[in-house]
């Protein structure tokens, strides 16, 4: 049984007004425990809408979401318990900081879960450590932090609930390159060391290619592809037609292959490309590598 099962989900915004808009159209998808899923799609394709349905923030117009086989919108389920299991980090999460110290802000989630004070403390510290937030910042006001630190504090606020599934909606938007890499590495670590399921929404194909095991492609509220990263990024034309692209390095390597060089297709990351090109060069020089 899959951990999260989405069945024929349909959702429209502004029902009954002149601005009605179908954001999701009959979407079905299965997500297994421990997977790292990348979600891509043109702007307005329904990514954020789908993510907000996975923890019951938006109620489906039609269709169901099952967590461990339970319909999360069934009246017998307490929706708050679902939200502790499916953590959602919104775009620009730092805009939700509110408490007078970072420590209190991070503890908001665990406190809502009804944990004991010791446990809350423990979780706050480990979550802050996890996102790389220095200890001495914990007792500052969240509004005194820098932009990147705010982002980390806000993410720690969700991680501290230790959800089974954690969803990041464009977590790196507006960060500098170092901040981006750092954050993505932390997310990857979270997936690896804790074995939790991670869903990452991003506009950066490079990031998705580097970290995701499977990729979900949304287009105009429908799922166009859901497959292993390599397979999705091998369909260059199809992605192009949806206003998406493959990582730049993949374009280069595909072109080289077209020109008759002996490189393997479907190279997705710079590291892989480096290995391939090195191999090619060595062979040309007649050396052994």
């Amino acid at each position, binding site marked *: 049984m899959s951990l999260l099962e989405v069945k024929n989900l349909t959702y429209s915004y*502004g029902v*009954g007004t002149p601005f009605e808009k179908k954001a999701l159209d009959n979407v079905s998808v299965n997500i297994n425990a421990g997977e790292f899923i990348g979600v891509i799609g043109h702007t307005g394709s329904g990514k954020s809408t789908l993510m907000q349905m996975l923890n019951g923030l938006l109620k489906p117009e039609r269709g169901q979401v099952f967590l461990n086989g339970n319909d999360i919108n069934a009246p017998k389920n307490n929706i708050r318990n679902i*939200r*502790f299991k499916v953590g959602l980090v919104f775009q620009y999460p730092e*805009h*939700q900081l509110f408490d007078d110290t970072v420590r209190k802000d991070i503890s*908001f989630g665990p406190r*809502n879960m009804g944990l004991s004070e010791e446990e809350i403390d423990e979780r706050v510290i480990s979550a802050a450590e996890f996102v790389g937030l220095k200890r001495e910042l914990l007792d500052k006001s969240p509004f005194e932090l820098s932009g990147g630190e705010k982002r980390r504090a806000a993410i720690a606020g*969700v991680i501290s609930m230790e959800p089974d599934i954690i969803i990041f909606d464009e977590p790196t938007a507006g960060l500098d390159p170092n901040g981006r890499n750092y954050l993505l590495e932390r997310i990857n670590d979270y997936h690896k060391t804790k074995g939790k399921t991670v869903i990452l929404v991003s506009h950066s194909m490079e990031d998705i290619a580097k970290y995701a095991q499977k990729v979900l492609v949304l287009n105009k509220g429908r799922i166009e592809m859901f497959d292993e990263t390599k397979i999705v990024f091998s369909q260059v034309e199809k992605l192009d037609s949806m206003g998406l692209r493959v990582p730049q390095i993949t374009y280069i390597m595909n072109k080289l292959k077209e020109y008759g060089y002996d490189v393997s297709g479907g190279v997705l990351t710079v590291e892989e490309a480096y290995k391939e090109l090195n191999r090619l060069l060595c062979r040309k020089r007649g050396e052994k590598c």
Partner: protein
Amino acid sequence: MLSDITIGQFFPGNSIIHRLDPRIKLVLLLSFIVFIFITGNYFSLSFIFIFVLSVVIMSGVALKMYLKSLKAIVYIVLFTSVINLLYGRGEPIAQLGILKVTVSGINNAVFVFIRIVSLILISSVLTYTTSPTQLTDGMERLMSPLKVFKIQVHEIAMMMTIALRFIPTLLDETEKIMNAQKARGASMDSGNVIQRIKAFIPVLVPLLVSSFRRAYELATAMECRCYHGGDGRTRMKSLHLKKADYISSAVCVIAFCGVVALNIILPAAER
């Protein structure tokens, strides 16, 4: 929930009402309010009510939207009508304990009901068919004589424009922040009053912070475009009265005369 709020909502369209000059619309709205209240008998009351309804239909905005704005005040209307119904003077025609219903009570209730409904409808016509910019533009022009008294008309109008402009943005923002806190297990709609008020702090603080941020950003953006207040500013779209404006004003004046005439010729309802 928040999407039910229709204050300041504008539905673009091309009806004759949409095309009227906002100044004319404002003046006509004020006169409508006056004449709705001077109706003295059922004839003038139904006359002006039918007139309001035809304006509503001519506006081309879905009737559903008008019903929505009426729904918001349905309890106030019913409450005042019932109070009026029970506090009439004269001989009771029905009595239950201390509650008595008289002819004047019934009259009062009907008048209050129709008047408030007409009032809401006609004001909705204005906000539904006039964009916020046009609206404040019209107000600014109408109030411009007040400049003589050193009242900063342009600044007031600008503040109103900005306030109207930011209502939907803030509603949007509130919804987003509420969702973000709910994702961390906040519950906004359970518990007693104190718990509920407390539950709103995690929403109010970020909302306040972001409003200040937006205000600063807007001020900077306005300065970057060399905004310097009212003196010496010219307009991209200056207002000119057109034929439709004169015709509609004439029609309304005739209708208002009709109300007065009906009031005078026919006997007043017992109040």
